[in-house]
């Protein structure tokens, strides 16, 4: 009977033809399924888990004053469109993509404001404020600034950034390394010379 059941599941393409395995589902998978089954309250948990990710992605792109409202809008949009998510395991990269698209739409609609921000002269001061450093990060290439904001502002580690954005760990590591190098140059920080093999 078990074998026939497995064959039936294979025909239904619900799982590969193998012995049935009991696997623990990630939390977000259970939460997404619960929300789709009608338990709206479960969405609050998803919001708690991924709001820092969305906040960091937006902070790398749009003015700080707009970020909080946009975070709310993005999650409401995600709630309405949750049924279009094919794989619940991909919730984090999916909502990250929504956040980037929304930031792009905002940038297009308020280009003037952003341009003024970018043209601000940032003095080479040893005691830069958080806003000044953030503005320096925003001038970096897109891939670097998002990774640096998630690392330094939201406090995520490289593996966490990779897991939530859907990037490979290798890509995130390269972005962090190169982004940090560029940021040091912009800030006027002299990096330590590489260790020379003595002999």
């Amino acid at each position, binding site marked *: 009977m078990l074998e026939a059941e497995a*064959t039936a599941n294979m025909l239904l393409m619900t799982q590969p033809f193998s012995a049935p395995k009991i696997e623990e589902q990630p939390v977000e998978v259970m939460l997404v399924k619960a929300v789709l089954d009608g338990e709206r309250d479960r969405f609050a948990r998803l919001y708690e888990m991924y709001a820092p990710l969305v906040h960091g992605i937006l902070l790398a792109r749009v003015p700080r004053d707009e970020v909080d409202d946009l975070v709310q809008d993005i999650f409401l949009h995600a709630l309405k469109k949750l049924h279009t998510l094919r794989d619940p395991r991909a919730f984090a990269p999916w909502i990250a993509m929504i956040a980037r698209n929304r930031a792009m739409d905002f940038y297009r609609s308020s280009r003037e404001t952003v341009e003024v921000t970018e043209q601000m002269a940032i003095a080479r001061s040893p005691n830069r404020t958080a806003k000044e450093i953030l503005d320096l990060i925003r001038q970096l290439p897109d891939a670097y600034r998002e990774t640096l904001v998630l690392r330094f502002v939201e406090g995520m580690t490289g593996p966490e950034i990779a897991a939530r954005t859907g990037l490979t760990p290798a890509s995130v590591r390269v972005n962090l390394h190169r982004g940090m190098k560029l940021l040091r140059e912009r800030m006027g920080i002299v990096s330590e010379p590489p260790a020379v093999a003595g002999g």
Partner: protein
Amino acid sequence: MNDNYLWDRSGEPDLDVQKLEEILGTLRYQPRPLEIPNDVRLRAGRPFFTKLAIAAAIGLVAIASGLWVNFNRHRTVPAVATTRDSQIDQKRNAPAPQIAPNDNASQLAVVKGTTPTNIQKRHREPARTLVAQNKSRDTAIRQSTLTPQELAEKEQVLLALRLVSAKLNLAQRKSQGLPQPNIIRNQHKIG
């Protein structure tokens, strides 16, 4: 620069990185509750159209499997009839007619007593005398083509197809919002 600390805060701390963490950490996300308006409606699960498409695809697979099994079953019968016809002709010292493997009309013409009015009727079912005489041989030949393992596998496939049918019914009922039955139909067939 200590890359490991920048990567996952392991190893010896990098002073520049620590300083950036301290300064930029003041901009970190501050939790605030999500306000969901009452008029926000959720659409449950996959759209009905997607389920229907999946069910239709599975149905096609099931039909194709059934046709394949049926085709294989019928393919053995004409071969046996043709062999037997040749033997009858040789016994009667009559020239053996050219019989096409799937040409039922010409096969029936060889059988004694066949009249034109009966051809159409007998076209639907093979000549009973022929089948009756060769039934055991026919069955023996047919059974000999399938090994016990193949017979078991065939049973498994048929069983799986019945399960597929049951699951499709359940999926259809669920997508239509109908109450799901507790009993699976034809349970004796499923086993």
